[in-house]
């Protein structure tokens, strides 16, 4: 059963179509990666899902209920962080969780608060005021607030913002744990495509407020193909060699270098052909597949 159902959702700010006719579903237990460039409409969509922004048109259903008519009931089951982790500087981490726990109908005890702080790695700083926290720690506390009432749907907008590499790994592991072990449905947006690639089971890419791609990562990205970046001493000559040979169909139209989308088993053959043709080869670099896919679909729709 879809936990989130969005149908023909639009939000216009004057003449600007921030989100336009967007439809998608998120199923129970999925980690749904929500991708888009800055200003593509991701945050506006997330804010509409949380009823922070009123849609211009369209319909949102969460847990099979209309957000417009069952808002309070629906929000009881959602935990969210939206963009920056903005908190009260004069309160401690523990006080934040205590206050937000009070706003839930579920009974949330001291032990639950302790466990949540433990989960995000803030137990040792629970009595410290937020004004002494780094951006990464605030982000963790934001996630703790989203989790404290044990919601079944978690919406995380850029949850790894401001985190160090260890922090990013921790949050990634936490998201995977919540999805796999606790069966949570998670919608996560991030500009770190490699992170989404490792976490998400399903992705959607929006560009200029419109959906440009959606589906399971495995389907969108051909596992038998790789994106290869060819670095040479003479790019013009290399392109000529590729166009005149059997690899011409794999050449991608890009201005930032020579890229081929090529079956993995043909890479050694490509290497050999380039050497035989006298190309001054510096290196063949495989690229992050999702990143390339993302750039491809967003540049196609420009």
């Amino acid at each position, binding site marked *: 059963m879809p936990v989130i159902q969005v149908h023909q959702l639009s939000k216009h700010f004057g003449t600007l179509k921030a989100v336009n006719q967007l439809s998608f579903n998120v199923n129970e237990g999925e980690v749904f990666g929500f991708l888009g460039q800055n200003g593509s409409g991701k945050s506006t969509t997330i*804010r509409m899902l*949380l*009823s*922070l*922004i*009123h849609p211009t048109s369209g319909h949102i259903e969460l847990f099979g209920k209309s957000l417009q008519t069952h*808002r*309070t*009931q629906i*929000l*009881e089951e*959602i935990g*969210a962080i*939206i963009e*920056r982790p*903005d*908190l*009260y500087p*004069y*309160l401690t981490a523990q*006080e934040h969780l205590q*206050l*937000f726990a*009070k*706003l*839930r*109908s579920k009974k949330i005890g001291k032990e639950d608060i302790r466990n949540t702080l433990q989960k995000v790695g803030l137990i040792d700083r629970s009595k410290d005021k937020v004004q002494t926290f780094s951006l990464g720690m605030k982000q963790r506390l934001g996630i703790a*607030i989203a989790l404290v009432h044990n919601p079944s749907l978690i919406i995380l907008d850029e949850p790894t913002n401001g985190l160090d590499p260890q922090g990013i790994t921790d949050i990634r592991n936490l998201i995977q744990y919540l999805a796999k072990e606790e069966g949570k449905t998670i919608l996560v947006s991030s500009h770190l495509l490699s992170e989404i690639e490792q976490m998400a089971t399903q992705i959607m890419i929006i560009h200029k407020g419109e959906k440009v791609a959606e589906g399971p990562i495995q389907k969108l990205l051909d596992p038998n193909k790789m994106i290869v970046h060819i670095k040479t001493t003479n790019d013009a000559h290399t392109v000529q060699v590729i166009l005149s040979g059997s690899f011409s169909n794999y050449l991608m139209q890009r201005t930032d270098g020579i890229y081929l989308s090529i079956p993995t088993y043909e890479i050694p053959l490509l290497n050999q052909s380039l050497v035989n043709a006298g190309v001054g080869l510096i290196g063949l670099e495989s690229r992050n597949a999702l990143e390339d896919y993302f750039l491809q679909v967003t540049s196609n729709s420009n």
Partner: protein
Amino acid sequence: MKAIISIELYKIFRRPRTYIAFGAIAALIMVIQLGLKMDGQSYAGFLMKDINDTLTVDGKVLNGYLICYILLQLLLVHVPLLVALIAADMISGEANLGTLRLLFTTPYSRSQWVLGKFIAASIYTIVLLIWLAFLALFVSMWIFGTDDLFLMKSNYVVLIQEHDVLWRYVGAFVFASFSLLTVTSLGFLMSSLANNSIGPIVGTMSAIVFFTILSTLNIPLFSVIKPYLFTTHMNNWKEFFDIKVNENNEAVFGTILNLAKIKTSLIVLTLHIILFVTASVFITKRKDILS
């Protein structure tokens, strides 16, 4: 709703800014009390210089009741400033901080949030007024003692017997709470319109100054609107200290000269509170949270 009020109060009283108002009131009152304690007799002489030739006054003129009256005259004009510091920050401050989106994604309606925040700000206002009452009335009574209250009006003198004074102060403070709650609700309305704290605080004060000027200007054009302005009614707590007299011009115990004026003022102030809070709810409900 109870949860909203309790967390809003918690936040208000955990913020250092909250205590500026309490500190400012305490400092002002103590300075005035000290001044009057040291040099009060010459001040009393100055007050009574016009009637000294025709009237002999026995007893302690400069007593706790008179000090409290002087303090209220001075302070009730400025306390709205201190109330606006908190009330005008209640919604816009959260928008500025970015925490409004955290609050509005909890399972409560925006109307509940606005009303809960207004009630919390009102409780703060009342607590501030109780603090003011404690320092201005009870501490003054303790320092200066009590006696009959002798007040100089523009063209007559009012003498209220000692045992007829205290309930009038209770009435005056209850009335003042309506005045200050009007300021709280105005600050709240300003707060719902902005995404930063400074604008609504300055806006609230500007509105009070603007309407006070209109209320005090004796220009026929403004006379039509004067009865409907909240600023015309905010200072009518003084009516509690005007007493009826009998045919022998003797004060009648337990009476108020113009009770109808107090009732009208309370109705006008209450209507303003309802209007400002309703407008805040309406604006906040329609608002897109973009901060």
